[in-house]
């Protein structure tokens, strides 16, 4: 990310070598974004940007581009617009990318998207005309060359494009080599799936180091024992370690005062993530952290402390 192509705060931070913190906003099936805007306001002082999800689990929500724009306008927070290849072909995607530029969106995260079969319109036609790597290629052509399929765009978009990676993937090598393809496509930053296993995370990050793409580690501080348990049970491929679950459980069972419980959960998150992030930072494996704990904005001041380690 050279200085001559900085289009956003995230791009600027990366160019300067600042450690990046991004949050996540998950607009729901509603046309009123006031709750999401409130969360954005709460995290804004602490993050470089916030991701805005694109119908996760293929459950229809308000369009992520519209939401990104509205959130930016209402709060001043910078967004990382999540865009999946599930719902639009290349024509639709390219049109939205130009629309994003016109709406002031300057970061996009290229995602495949959960399959339509998983969502609340399972009967609909999945698109997947491009994939997450070739969408990165499309963005880079539009931004760097100012064209689509070699055809000139009058006022091309200016934005940074990132991709996702899953350090929990098994077989891991299949995932590592896939990140090589994303890097070749022009991926400018990686945001990972949530991790809890430090050994595995180190192995994965060491594996993709050669591709020289800055990595924001995906973390999910757990607001309560219920959330931790649900996350462990319902997020495929991510296991919350048993000893962590036990620690969270003990807060629930041992502390009855709600305010004290909150403090205890926050402290547990701090104690777990601080050494975790610190070790990865000391190995030069991270360019930032991506916190996916939606509806848990009170953790951000502590997270800022965590990543300073």
């Amino acid at each position, binding site marked *: 990310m050279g200085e001559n192509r900085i289009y956003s705060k995230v791009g600027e931070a990366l160019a300067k070598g600042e450690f990046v913190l991004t949050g996540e906003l998950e607009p729901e099936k509603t046309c009123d974004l006031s709750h999401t805007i409130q969360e954005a306001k709460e995290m804004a002082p602490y993050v470089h940007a916030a991701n805005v999800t694109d119908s996760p689990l293929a459950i229809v929500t308000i369009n992520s581009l519209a939401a990104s724009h509205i959130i930016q306008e209402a709060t001043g927070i910078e967004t990382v617009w999540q865009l999946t290849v*599930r719902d639009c072909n*290349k024509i639709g995607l390219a049109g939205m990318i130009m629309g994003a530029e016109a709406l002031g969106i300057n970061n996009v995260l290229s*995602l*495949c998207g*959960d*399959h339509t*079969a*998983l969502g609340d319109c399972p009967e609909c036609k*999945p698109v*997947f*005309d*491009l*994939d*997450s*790597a*070739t969408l990165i*290629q499309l963005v880079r052509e539009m931004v760097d060359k100012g064209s689509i399929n070699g055809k000139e765009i009058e006022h091309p978009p200016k934005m940074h494009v990132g991709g*996702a990676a*899953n350090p929990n*993937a*098994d*077989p891991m*090598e*299949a*995932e590592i*080599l*896939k990140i*090589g*393809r994303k890097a*070749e*496509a022009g991926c400018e930053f990686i945001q990972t*799936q949530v991790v809890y296993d430090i050994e595995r995370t180190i192995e994965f990050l060491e594996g993709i180091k050669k591709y020289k793409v800055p990595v924001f580690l995906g973390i999910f501080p757990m607001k309560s024992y219920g959330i931790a348990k649900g996350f462990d049970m319902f997020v*495929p*491929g991510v296991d919350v370690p048993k000893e962590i679950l036990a620690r969270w459980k003990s807060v629930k069972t041992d502390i009855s005062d709600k305010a004290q419980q909150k403090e205890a959960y926050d402290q547990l998150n701090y104690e777990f993530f601080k050494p975790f992030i610190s070790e990865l930072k000391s190995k030069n494996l991270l360019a930032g952290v991506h916190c996916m704990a939606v509806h848990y904005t009170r953790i951000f001041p502590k997270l800022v402390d965590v990543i300073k380690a």
Partner: protein
Amino acid sequence: MTIITTKKPFEEVLGAIKEAKKIAIVSCGSCAAMCQTGGTEGAKEMAEKLEEKGFEITTVIVPEEVCDNRVMMKDFRKIDEDLQNTDAILTLSCGLGVASIVQTLEKKHPKIPVFIGTNTEFMGMTERIGRFYMRCRGCGDCLLNETGGICPITSCAKSLMNGPCGGMVKGKCEVGNYEEDCGWVLIYNRLKELGRLDLYTKLRPPRDWSESGHQRKVVWR
């Protein structure tokens, strides 16, 4: 290779042919016979069920391959008299069979409607009778030379050119509750076995769908 068919629910078939009284059954002796949706047995079963419902069966034929216009021209000549007295044809074959019959009869019997009693599932690989698997979608631009003989268009639920996606968990696919293999992990394992991970690391361009917007044909004479 077999075109795999399954039986439509009988009530659905009845709904389709309800305006007719006299039915001719054309039951394919090839793929549909193998899938036990057509052939002699399938035709006999269907004829009996229709007769029970009060339909008159004017004729039953089991051509060698209903999808072959040449076969059908010959076979229809033999039953032309019966066709004069037929309200509708019920076909027990794949969709190609219906197309073939419509095309073969369009001059002589353009007013006879042609119905189908099966659903055409896919071009299938036969493991044994009763175990058929889709391994090729016939997309017209074969990638198998680069993917260790495993087709990503077919084996990946998203037909991705650069998989696996984030929906892969321990080699299984998010579609179907993690019971089916992830096609891209199969490709990775196969290419690794062959010592050709260089092919796996290749960034592939999107599929070219420009030739798929209309009915494809292969005409060389």
